[in-house]
Every structure is written in structure tokens, then in C-alpha cells.
């Protein structure tokens, strides 16, 4: 009796897992199969998931609807720059907070923790107005008046992404677990602090740098709100903004939209599947902050 109850429980829990996995996969399956259908198939009441004939040319047509080469370039460029700059300045600051002593260190660290909790949605308006009034950029005078500043430029797109303090915290948490003897040995060998950081902490810090890179990559590539606010016109659009082009047509061509959505998402999903460990570790370290 007890044993059969146990088996029933097991079966039920596997059933629930199967149900949830199916519910998670279903939209992805729909996205893929409908990207291969023709519009007349989509309009017909036929409920089959599989397309009659796979219309692979939808992907080509989707990419030709608007300047997708430009959109992909914009997203890639912004993401790569954000990842590289973040890795450099965040790991450097993380090392300082983990190892060096100086006045105001604790105060600054609290400020950086607090900074992680400031939602970008709250500071959006002053940041836009700051970006707009960068002196001597985009037709501005020396006081930052008269032009559009860094609005609708790559710099404007990139800057707010590298200002966040999450990466500093992430690196600090990792570096602080290194044995202090490493520093002492380096100091005795005559290494300065910066040399110690470059030749010891950076090579040993590869796992945390990988986590930071993956999280920053996904965060920047997937971002919608900031590019929406800061870009104007077609030339500066990122892939996420460009997807909404299809949404604004009078009749939405769902097959093309699904094809484009799949291509835009595939990039992050692939990175994520291959670097799942780093992704998960990054989220976990970041969440210990409470």
C-alpha cells in the first residue's frame, strides 16, 4: 500500500515536470514552426503545428525587411564594447575592494552596493538629459547646450551599461576568497599592486570574468528600454528595437516576425547553453547580496 502510494507520487511528480517542460517549450516550438509557414497557411483555420512545406526563404525575406545587417552590427558592436570595458574596469575595481586599504573604502563599497539597487528606470530621465548635454558633442557648445549631445550615437548607447556596479561586486566577491599570501609573495618579488592584479588576479579570476562576460552580454544584447529612449531613426536601431518594426505593420507578417525573433534570440540562447555554468554562477553570486 505504502509502496504503491510512493510510486504514484513519483509518477505524478514526473508528470508535472513533463507538463511544465512542455509548457516552456511550446512557444519556442511555435516560434520555429511558424517561421517556416506561409501567410496563407497562418490565416487558414488549419491547427497543425508543422508547415506544409518549409518556407526557409522567410528568413531571407525577414532579413531584407529593413537593414538587418546594420541592426546586427549595432547590437554586436555595442555589446562587445560593453563587455570589454566592463570586464576591465569592474575587475580592476573588484580587486581594489577585495585587497587594498584606503580611506573611504567602506563608504564607497556601501555606495556601490546601493548602486546595484537603483533601478535604471528611476534615473532614466536625468541620464538622458546628461547624455544630451555632453559638451561639444552632437552640435553642443562648450556648456552642453544647443545640440543633441550623444543622443543617437554609439557612445550614448554604451555608457549607461558600463556604469552599473554589479560587476564590481561580482569580481570583489570572487577575489576576496583568494589567499592573501599571493599578494605578499608578489610584493616581496617587487610587484606593484597593478602588476599583481594583472599577473595574478586576472589569470586566476577567469571563472568570474566568464560569468560577468556572459551576464553582461545577455543583458546588453537583450536590452530594449535604453535603446528605445536613446536612438532615433533606423540607422542606430539595435536588433531588439528592430523586431518591433514588424509589430507596427498594418497586417503583421507573423512568419517573418517569428523568423527574425528566432535569429535575434538564437545568439543569446546559444551562448547561454554553452556557458550555462558561468551564467548560473553569476546569477547566484549576484543574488547573495540580499
Amino acid at each position: 500500500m505504502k509502496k504503491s502510494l510512493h510510486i504514484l507520487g513519483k509518477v505524478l511528480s514526473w508528470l508535472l515536470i513533463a507538463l511544465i517542460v512542455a509548457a516552456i517549450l511550446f512557444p519556442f516550438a511555435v516560434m520555429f514552426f511558424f517561421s517556416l509557414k506561409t501567410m496563407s497557411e497562418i490565416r487558414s483555420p488549419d491547427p497543425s503545428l508543422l508547415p506544409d512545406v518549409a518556407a526557409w526563404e522567410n528568413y531571407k525575406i525577414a532579413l531584407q525587411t529593413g537593414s538587418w545587417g546594420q541592426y546586427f552590427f549595432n547590437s554586436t558592436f555595442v555589446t562587445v564594447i560593453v563587455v570589454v570595458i566592463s570586464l576591465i574596469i569592474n575587475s580592476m575595481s573588484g580587486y581594489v575592494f577585495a585587497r587594498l586599504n584606503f580611506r573611504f573604502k567602506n563608504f564607497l563599497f556601501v555606495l556601490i552596493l546601493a548602486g546595484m539597487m537603483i533601478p535604471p528606470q528611476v534615473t532614466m530621465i536625468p541620464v538622458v538629459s546628461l547624455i544630451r548635454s555632453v559638451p561639444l558633442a552632437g552640435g553642443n557648445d562648450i556648456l552642453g547646450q544647443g545640440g543633441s549631445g550623444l543622443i543617437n550615437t554609439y557612445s550614448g548607447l554604451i555608457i549607461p551599461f558600463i556604469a552599473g556596479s554589479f560587476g564590481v561586486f561580482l569580481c570583489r566577491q570572487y577575489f576576496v576568497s583568494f589567499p592573501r599570501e599571493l599578494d605578499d609573495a608578489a610584493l616581496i618579488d617587487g610587484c606593484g599592486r597593478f602588476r599583481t592584479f594583472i599577473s595574478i588576479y586576472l589569470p586566476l579570476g577567469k571563472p568570474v570574468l566568464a560569468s560577468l562576460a556572459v551576464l553582461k552580454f545577455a543583458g546588453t544584447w537583450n536590452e530594449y528600454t535604453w535603446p528605445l529612449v536613446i536612438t532615433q531613426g533606423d540607422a542606430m536601431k539595435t536588433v531588439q528595437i528592430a523586431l518591433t518594426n514588424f509589430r507596427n505593420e498594418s497586417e503583421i507578417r507573423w512568419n517573418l516576425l517569428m523568423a527574425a525573433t528566432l535569429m535575434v534570440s538564437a545568439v543569446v540562447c546559444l551562448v547561454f547553453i554553452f556557458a550555462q555554468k558561468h551564467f548560473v554562477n553569476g546569477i547566484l553570486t549576484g543574488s547573495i547580496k540580499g
Partner: protein
Amino acid sequence: MSRIVRGHRHTAVSNVRRGETLSAWLMLLPFLIFFALFVIYPLVQNFIYSLTNYNFGPKHDFVGLKNYIQLFSDEWFLASLKNTVVYAFFSVIFLTGLGLVISVMLNKRSRMVKAARTVLILPYATSMVAVSMVWLFLLDPTTGYINKLLIELGVSTLPTWLNDPELALPSLIFINIWKNLGYCMIIYLSGLQNIPTELYEAAEVDGASTLRRHISITLPQIAPVTFFVLITNCIEAFKTFEQVQIMTQGGPMTSTTTVVLQIYRRAFEDFRMGYASAIAVVLFGIIFIMTVINLLLFKRRSEDK
């Protein structure tokens, strides 16, 4: 002689100190500049803007608390606050509850379980824009796939989903749960793995059933993690914008407008930056309170240990 040596050592130590301070500030400098200019300063500036009639123009006047007073009679803002609270409440209940149940079931070592976990995290890695587009198609009243399936099942009065003021917000909540379940699972699983296995072994010796073991061991042991998941999801829910902007634009009527959508509309469509800043201050206040509660409980938790 000894005095000279001591003096010498003293300068050597202070030289090292000074070198340390200098390298510290030099290495921090690049980050600090960005952080000060684009995180700290805007937070302060936002408070100042909220007391003015700023509209991106070169001049703006101080208007005192006028923006805040106006909030109380702004039916769009009040609706957005109500929607956001409802959205956060139901998202959080399901994410914390369902997330825990799934994580307990997936807290095993097998290849199947590993594959299931990967699938669950997939929506979390996908952008909210992409997620919104797929669900926009699934829920489309005429060409959408879900209604097609409902027709096949013989349902006669088809729901219009996002076009129905009653169903639009629940649909958005469902999508949010669908997207963020994987995040909750990651956090829960790490918490579950920290529960000492001896506790379960002892309970098994005592003859406690699986359900019994989860109720009297897992639940109390995972409580702090549960609270963390609850608060972080709540904060995220209060920041909801992309989903609404892409899928419903806040409609039908006021049924899905959210606080951040109101900030965006007032600021970048009406150019009433001062007023939008006041809404942003309210949002910051709400998130700040939740963060402080979370921190206090986290502190108590680590002191208990």
C-alpha cells in the same frame, strides 16, 4: 641607532601605504567616473527635477510639490499603480510557490533532470521583446495559435486575450511567470543544496514520508531563500515596462498600464520630465522600502548563523 632604524622603517611602511592608496584610487578611477556621473548623480538630479516643470528645455522653474499633488488626481497614474501592484502580487505568488515545488522535484542528479533545468532557464535567457512577440502571436484573437487550438477543441466563444480588459493583465502576468520561473529555480536549487542531508536521513530513519519530510525540513530550511525570491521578483515586477510597451501599450483603456510605462509616456511622449520624475521618485520609494526589508532580514539571517 635603534631610533634611526625605527624611523626608517616607519617611512618605508608609510611609503607602502601611500603607494597603496594611490594605486587604489587610480585603479578605481575609470569605474568611479561612470558610476558617479550615470548612477549617483542622476538619482539626486531626479529628485530635483521632480520639484520642477523641467521639459528638456534650457530653463525650468521650481514648482514645489505641485507634481506630487497632481499625482493623486491623475487617473492614469492611479490605474498604473493599481495594475502594477496586482501584477506584482500574482506574479510573486506563483513564482515563489510554483518555483519551489518545481525545484524540489528537480533537486536530483540525473541526465533527464539536467535537461529539464536547461529548458526551464531558456525563457530567462531570451529577451523580453522576443518573448512578447511570440506570445503576441500565440494570443492573437484571429490568427493566433491558441485560439486556433480552442476552435479545434470546440470552444464557441473565443477569448480575445490582450484585447479584453478583463484578460489582458492576467495574460501579461502569466507570461511573466513563464519567463522567470527559471530564475527562481536557479536560486531555489542552490538553497536546497545547502540543506544538510543528515536532516533528511534522520527523518527517513524515523519513518517520515516524503511529503512529511518536505513540510517539516525543506520548508523551514528554505524559508530565507523563499523570501529572497519573493522580494527580488516583486522588485522586478514593479519595473515592468517592455512587455506592456510592446504587447498592449497599456490598453485596453487603462487595464494594463504600469508605473514605468507612465514614466516613459509622460517623459518621452509628453515631454513633462518634471512630472515623470515625480512618478520615478514614487517608484524608487517603493523599491527602496522592499530592498531595505530584504537587507534587514538578510542581516538577521546571517547573524543567526
